[in-house]
């Protein structure tokens, strides 16, 4: 068998709760998603995360830690507000919320530079904000307003901002994976050291686009980091019902790509794994696959009936809420005091209020916008 870069980074050989003490793999779930969990095991899992975070906390400067917490809280509150606005009819169409998965986008994007690239699926509000887009422009896009980041033409699934190299929300499952591979190809072609983060859900792994892209990325040594946010459900179909072999990080073997399995409820674990992948990409033009195990607390979209999983299952995962876990670590280590937590909450509330105010006040796109941006070089046919 050809060499496999498995020695790179850490990865649990057998996903199980027994690996909770491992830095990058804690709290892995069973395939069948059990109804309940005994409090003792849960306690052990969370203690393991806190233990792992404690050692990491000491290596990271306070500003970064506070910023990570602030951003996680910001995108949580942003999504809560989005749900509210959707329910009151201010937001239309599809609206896929990120609640529960915050540690993934915030942790990973904190590991890259401003001039690096990010591409996502349609569940990308948090990634957009993490990459540096204003909550105002994202909320206004959700409202379908002219002040939105895509001028109201993209909506929830198609956030873009060229200024911060946020290259979209893409609506076809797995569609962004070849695109991100191409962005990484361009970085190598132009001989820059920019890297590309490509986020997608675990359901996209069953698409040909995933496999075709990983093959090309390793064949041509492209600086793309594939981040599979394994929230364990493709819409209402559980991973166990959709994937014959559910160890996603192991699929990198087929393409001789370095892979890591990461606890997606631990923002620092995600950040660290991404930093390792970024270094490989920047210095050696090498791709990486990260399988980040997480959980979506809300439905697939706002119209999810929720009948495919139990309340107990959701509650069990909510016990491992990435924001609560991180807050507990920050508090225990004395990084933030109760007063400071309250201050951050107040700042976030203010940011969300401003975002909503901006979206409310932003004008609708002008009717003539219907026909703009179809072509970059519009051609009036016929002899001129």
């Amino acid at each position, binding site marked *: 068998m050809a060499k496999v870069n498995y020695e790179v980074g850490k990865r649990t050989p057998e996903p199980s709760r027994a690996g909770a003490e491992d830095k990058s793999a804690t709290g892995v779930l069973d395939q069948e998603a059990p109804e309940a969990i005994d409090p003792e095991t849960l306690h052990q899992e969370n203690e393991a995360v806190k233990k792992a975070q404690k050692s990491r906390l000491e290596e990271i400067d306070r500003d970064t830690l506070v910023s990570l917490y602030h951003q996680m809280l910001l995108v949580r509150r942003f999504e809560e507000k989005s749900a509210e606005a959707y329910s009151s009819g201010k937001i239309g169409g599809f609206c896929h919320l990120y609640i529960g998965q915050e540690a993934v986008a915030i942790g990973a994007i904190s590991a890259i530079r401003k001039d690096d690239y990010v591409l996502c699926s349609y569940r990308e509000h948090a990634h957009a904000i993490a990459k540096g887009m204003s909550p105002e422009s994202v909320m206004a896009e959700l409202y379908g307003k002219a002040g939105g980041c*895509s001028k109201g*033409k993209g909506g929830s699934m198609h956030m873009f901002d060229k200024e911060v190299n946020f290259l979209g929300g893409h609506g076809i499952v797995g569609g962004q994976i070849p*695109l991100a591979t*191409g962005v990484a190809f361009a970085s190598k072609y132009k001989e820059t050291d920019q890297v590309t983060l490509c986020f997608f859900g675990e359901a996209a792994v069953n698409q040909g686009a995933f496999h*075709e892209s990983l093959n090309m990325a390793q064949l041509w040594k492209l600086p793309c980091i594939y981040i599979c946010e394994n929230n364990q459900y493709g819409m209402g179909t559980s991973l166990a019902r959709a994937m014959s072999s559910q160890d996603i990080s192991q699929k990198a073997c087929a393409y001789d790509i370095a892979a890591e399995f990461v606890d997606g409820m631990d923002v620092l674990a995600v950040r660290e794994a991404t930093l390792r992948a970024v270094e490989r990409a920047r210095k050696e033009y090498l791709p990486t696959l990260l399988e980040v195990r997480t959980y979506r607390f809300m439905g697939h979209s706002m119209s999810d009936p929720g009948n495919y999983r139990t309340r107990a299952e959701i509650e069990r995962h909510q016990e491992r809420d990435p924001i609560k876990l991180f807050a507990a670590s920050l508090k225990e280590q004395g990084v933030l005091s109760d007063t400071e937590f309250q201050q951050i909450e107040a700042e976030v509330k203010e940011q969300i209020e401003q975002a909503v105010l901006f979206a409310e006040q932003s004008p609708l796109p002008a009717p003539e916008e219907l026909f703009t941006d179809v072509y970059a070089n519009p051609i009036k046919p016929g002899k001129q």
Partner: protein
Amino acid sequence: MAVVTMREALNQALREEMLRDENVFLMGEEVAAYEGAYKVTKDLLAELGDKRVIDTPITELGFAGLGVGAAMVGLRPIVEFMTFNFSILATDQIINSAAKMLYMSGGQFKIPIVFRGPGGSAFQVSSQHSQAIESWFAYFPGLKVVMPSTPADAKGLLKSAIRDDDPVIFIEQERMYGNKGEVPDDIDFIVPLGVADVKREGKDATIVARSLMVPVALKAAEILEKQGVSCEVIDPRTIRPLDLDTIIESVKKTNRVVVAEESHPFCGVGAEIASEITERAFDYLDAPVKRVSAADVPMPYAKNLEDLAVPGVEQIVAAVREVAYL
């Protein structure tokens, strides 16, 4: 002016544009070491190197999407499909990504990419390798669709397509690569997109033909001339955007139209042209617009059946006589 084949004319366009702009690169199956399944990319690897001329695995969706991603950040990819039959695997990236990116990003991300390769009927390769699918691509706003019929047009239009900032579907005709014609030597020679060409002037009937049907229509026009019917042959060259003004102008003069195409009739480009003529020039028509299309069946292998499936000179002659009430 030198007389060259369509294949050589396309090769010249690729070479000249790649030398002109280092952000232009070419990728596809067998384009480099093999020099192209149809030898359109001959000598390019040797001249430009493997950074610019890239052999891909057989992974059409993957490399089409990779091209679109590269175009988002400033490169100008030319993606060759060995034939457009294989582009069917890549349609998600062409339609959902390339065609719509500029619009859904509110004008932020243009996609300057050319998807090119042979399409249309080929010789005895049966149903999956012999078909005209331009109407699929022409359907979508955001794409431009080009189909040349002469070596000069092929070169000039391909150069324009590569310089264009939008995704361009450039369909060459598999049977026409060896066709010869005069091509201007001037390195700055281009043919603008969106401009039809009157390939033959006439006064009694208009034949609108594209790609392989242009030489067939010109032959039919010669025969009809001898029968006393003067035909004007118009080649739109660009299917989207379509130069309807040139077609309508001709219809107003001749009052009779035949649209010849080697694609299926249902929901085809010919149906669109017929509809536009009806809307814009109904009062000028002396007869209903007549279409000559491929048989509405998958392409058969047997030579005699294949010949029956692809429209030929006789059908066009008969159609013109029909609209002329002869």
